[in-house]
């Protein structure tokens, strides 16, 4: 490709306005959207509007399991201002969607399978009209006995609640000598509650129909524009190119925006009415409308030598996937394949089930199955330490995995694997210097905080450990590539990609990459939409690696064009040219041309797709190279506990994380602190409570998230060994912080009160009784 003369095209910049951003790889520039977000001027998808737009709203099932006998829409149609009322009968294409198995109905037709399942939707001139229209729809249900015990789904004693059966997937891992035994054997049951992603920017979308209804444009907060597009197009029976998506401002995702929620409904209503339609969920609807972290029950047994070396692990895992498949089968694979933790282990028998129940559907959430596995294996490591008379750090060091070790799937860890270093660096971080209750005796620093429930004398301090391994990118043969296009024009680089910016900071990083590779200061980010190839999902800790790799690759291609051009102009072999700061320089001579000058009046453009190395499916014994890459992390938690009231104050979390290379250290720390907040939440308060299939706390009054007062001090060391497999040497850093922080906190509570806690979140009554 050769340089072409610049034409005057106007480039639309994204809504991410603010101060100009500078900074190259390794710097910590401010986010391009940071100031707008802090000042409240950033447009989130809930702020979208279009002239003449209607409001949409969704009627949801009040029953966990029921047969729909009849639906009478006449009452809704009779209301002034109602422009459309749609049900399953109105879905023109595929009646169901889903990321892996398409088993989730756009609208329930014959059966409803969870409280909150969409049954109908309306479009009207006002949200209040929508509310009245929904209230006027008469649905007659024959209520059925719900399946609420995942064990009964796994053991087959409950009749199928869906034609596909009650088991989403069963996977066994058998490795090595299954009869092997150890001198020391420890076992326990563990339980993990259902966590919500609880992003603050509620689900919202705006759909604008093409004239004549031949297509639709959707602005939506999502994690993966192209996957949404494929599923929407199938349900609407439109060719994919007739469904165009643009990313609406995303206020957090954490996995909950990977599945379809309101996308098809909004588009369908827009096509029906020929007018723009917006849907915005309330907090309660958000709890019902997206997938959650799988609750899990895990039994685990470790065999070890007397000096604490793991001989064999055995585990049985049952994950409650709720009513529809979502990514349950992939979450299960992550859980079973991470059961050994970041420890050497030759022999294993692991059995895992992901099952269907009449609970809320579960799918992706930060940590994706590994959170559950880690809670169990770390509980086991502490048991093993106690049984062998070792301390928690020593037992983990003795078993720490290294590059070249094999997983229980037989896969060799080829990545940098600094498990030992993570543990030692964490241990080297200072313990909090403050005594219980802080130096000045501020009661806010005690468990119970503002409630003034305790005095210092009531409190016991504990320390606990958690260490984790986490796979990065997608697994089992999936090619989750990412695409980027780079245009270098007049010294300005324009970047085009469909990478969903959900708060993780890719918009910052992309600019850093372009500045470093191309020697430019000015980087323009084009709108994030489906007019370029897929970027894959913003999940699985993958975008820095995958989209970062794509932007880096495209920049390098453009740089080659630039060098070819400069080389030709100056009679220098392009291979001798390099970027130094803002200049193209001859590494073997004196030539030095500023990039801005070299590109004046010219356009260089190229597109690059980054693919990671291929992976394999697991065989029936759970053997195979199913994962792409791995990252590691250690956490040490210090907690203060009031044993009589069961209240906890997490005082400090120390962590050392294997990040490969910190491309933006501030962003990495942001991920670490945020992930720890989520990990602390799962340890001591965050849980969706469902009783008889009904959610009891679909609001922030009763679904508690850590506040500033609940957040511990975080001290962190970044372990930087650039990974040769990673395009920029950087590993994904998003998930590890929330994985082993939870078991570390629970271990610290155990240490403080000398009691066996096997369930997370730990409730006050679990401590007291």
């Amino acid at each position, binding site marked *: 490709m050769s340089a072409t003369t610049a034409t005057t095209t106007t480039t639309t910049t994204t809504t991410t306005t603010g101060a100009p951003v500078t900074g190259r790889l390794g710097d910590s520039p401010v986010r391009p959207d940071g100031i707008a977000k802090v000042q409240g001027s950033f447009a989130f998808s809930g702020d979208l509007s279009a002239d003449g737009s209607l409001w949409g709203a969704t009627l949801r099932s009040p029953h966990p399991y029921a047969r729909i006998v009849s639906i009478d829409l006449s009452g809704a149609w009779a209301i002034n201002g109602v422009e459309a009322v749609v049900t399953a009968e109105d879905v023109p294409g595929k009646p169901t969607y889903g990321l892996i198995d398409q088993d989730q109905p756009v609208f329930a037709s014959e059966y409803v399978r969870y409280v909150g399942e969409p049954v109908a939707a309306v479009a009207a001139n006002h949200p209040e009209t929508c509310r009245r229209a929904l209230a006027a729809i008469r649905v007659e249900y024959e209520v059925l006995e719900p399946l609420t015990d995942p064990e009964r789904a796994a053991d087959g004693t409950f009749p199928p609640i869906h034609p596909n059966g009650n088991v989403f997937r069963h996977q066994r891992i058998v490795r090595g000598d299954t009869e092997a035994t150890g001198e020391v054997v420890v076992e326990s049951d563990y339980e993990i509650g259902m966590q919500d992603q609880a992003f603050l920017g509620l689900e919202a979308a705006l759909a604008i129909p093409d004239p004549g209804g031949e297509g639709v444009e959707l602005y939506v907060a999502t994690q993966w524009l192209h996957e949404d597009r494929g599923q929407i197009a199938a349900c609407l029976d439109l060719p994919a190119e007739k469904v165009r998506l643009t990313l609406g401002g995303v206020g957090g995702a954490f996995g909950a925006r990977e599945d379809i929620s309101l996308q098809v409904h909004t588009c369908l209503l827009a096509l029906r009415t020929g007018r723009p339609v917006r849907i915005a969920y309330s907090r309660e609807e958000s709890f019902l409308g997206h997938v959650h972290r799988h609750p899990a029950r895990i039994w685990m047994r470790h065999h070890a030598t007397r000096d604490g070396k793991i001989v064999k692990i055995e585990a049985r895992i049952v994950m409650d996937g709720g009513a529809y498949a979502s990514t349950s089968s992939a979450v299960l694979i992550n859980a079973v394949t991470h059961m050994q933790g970041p420890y050497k282990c030759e022999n294993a028998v692991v059995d895992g089930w992901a099952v269907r129940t009449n609970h809320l559907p579960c799918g992706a959430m930060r940590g994706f199955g590994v959170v559950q596995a880690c809670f169990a294996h770390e509980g086991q490591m502490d048991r093993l330490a106690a049984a062998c008379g070792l301390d928690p750090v020593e037992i983990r060091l003795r078993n720490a995995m290294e590059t070249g070790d094999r997983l229980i799937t037989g896969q060799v860890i080829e990545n940098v694997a600094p498990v030992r270093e993570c543990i030692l660096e964490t241990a080297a971080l200072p313990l909090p210097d403050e005594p219980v209750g802080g130096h000045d005796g501020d009661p806010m620093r005690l468990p*119970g*905080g503002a*409630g*003034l429930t305790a005095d210092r004398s009531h409190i016991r301090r504990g320390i606990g450990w958690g260490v984790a391994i986490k796979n990065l990118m997608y697994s089992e043969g999936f090619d989750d590539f990412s695409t980027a296009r780079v245009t270098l024009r007049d010294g300005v680089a324009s970047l085009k990609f469909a990478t969903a910016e959900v708060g993780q900071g890719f918009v910052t990083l992309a600019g850093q990459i372009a500045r470093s590779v191309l020697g430019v200061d000015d980087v323009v980010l084009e709108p994030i939409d489906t007019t370029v190839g897929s970027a894959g999902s913003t999940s699985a800790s993958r975008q820095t690696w995958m989209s970062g790799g794509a932007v880096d690759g495209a920049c390098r291609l453009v740089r080659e064009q630039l060098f070819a051009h400069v080389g030709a102009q100056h009679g220098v072999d392009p291979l001798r040219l390099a970027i130094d700061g803002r200049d193209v320089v001859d590494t073997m001579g004196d030539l030095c041309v500023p990039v801005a000058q070299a590109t004046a009046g010219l356009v260089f453009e190229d597109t690059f797709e980054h693919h990671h190395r291929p992976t394999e499916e697991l065989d029936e014994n759970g053997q195979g190279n199913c994962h792409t890459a791995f990252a590691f992390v250690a956490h040490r938690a210090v907690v203060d506990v009031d044993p009589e009231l069961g209240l906890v104050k997490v005082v400090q979390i120390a962590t050392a994380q294997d990040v490969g290379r910190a491309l933006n250290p501030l962003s990495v720390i942001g991920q670490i602190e945020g992930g720890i907040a989520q990990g602390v939440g799962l340890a001591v308060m965050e849980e969706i409570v469902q*009783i008889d299939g009904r959610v009891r706390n679909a609001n922030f009054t*009763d679904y508690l998230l850590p506040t500033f007062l609940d957040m511990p001090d975080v001290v962190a060391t970044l372990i930087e060994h650039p990974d040769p497999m990673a395009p920029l040497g950087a590993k994904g850093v998003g998930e590890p912080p929330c994985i082993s922080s939870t078991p570390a906190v629970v271990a610290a509570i155990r240490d403080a009160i000398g009691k066996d806690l096997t369930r997370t979140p730990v409730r*006050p009554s679990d401590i007291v*009784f």
Partner: protein
Amino acid sequence: MSVTVAHTLDEALELLAATPSATVLAGGTDLMVELNMGHRRTDAVVCVNRVGELRSWRHDPGTDTLRIGAAITYAELMDAPLAGFSPALAQAARTVGSPQIRNAATIGGNVGTASPAGDGLPVLRALDAVVHLASTAGTRDVPFAEFATGPKRTVVQPGELITGVTIPVLNGFQGYSKVGVRNAMVIATASACLAVDTNGHTVRLALGSVGPVILRAPEAETIAVQAADFEAGTIDPEAIPAFAAAAAAAARPIDDHRSTAAYRRRAIEVLSRRLLTRAFPAPTPGASS
């Protein structure tokens, strides 16, 4: 929906008389949540948090009582000078919500909602507060003990406004403790207010979130009074467990999604014991004969 902002008490009462079905809005921190959740609907709203008479407070040195206007906020109750008159009310105020909530939410709204978990209410119950009501027909005073008839049910009649509450200014320890699963901004799963009147030789213990309304624990109070030496500020340590057990026995907790009855009862026992110990700190060993 009509929304009217009243600036004087008379104006507010006339608006309510004209539309007895109107809903009173003070800080809106309960009401707006209920409206947004669709738990409550209304056609007319009368805003009262700009009414001067409700925004004021008065200490009467003669009776040594404090009259607090209904639209006084928690932010005001938390700080001097009001905090000096009732330390327990200040502590309770500090536990409410977040700074934003405390700047808007009022004591009158807490009383009006009459949730068993309302943080201001155990203090009012312990102090035997009086609630002042007014309508165009006149005023009436209702002892706080008779004000709530059940969870979120009160004796307030259509057209009536809560104008304020009056509490005695006591000489003696006061404390409010609240258990929630989070270290701030959380609904009480159990709470207790202990107030000692060293002059009148009474100990008052009120319990929140463990019954349909705020409860007192009269048996526990009697145990404490009998075991206390009000002049010395000490108590017979052996009475403390009995006091705590009697407090727990007075609770009438339930199981719900927030907690269990057993935990709530235990929490009341622990909070009562700790509050009594704070009120009557153990004498330093060797200090007395």
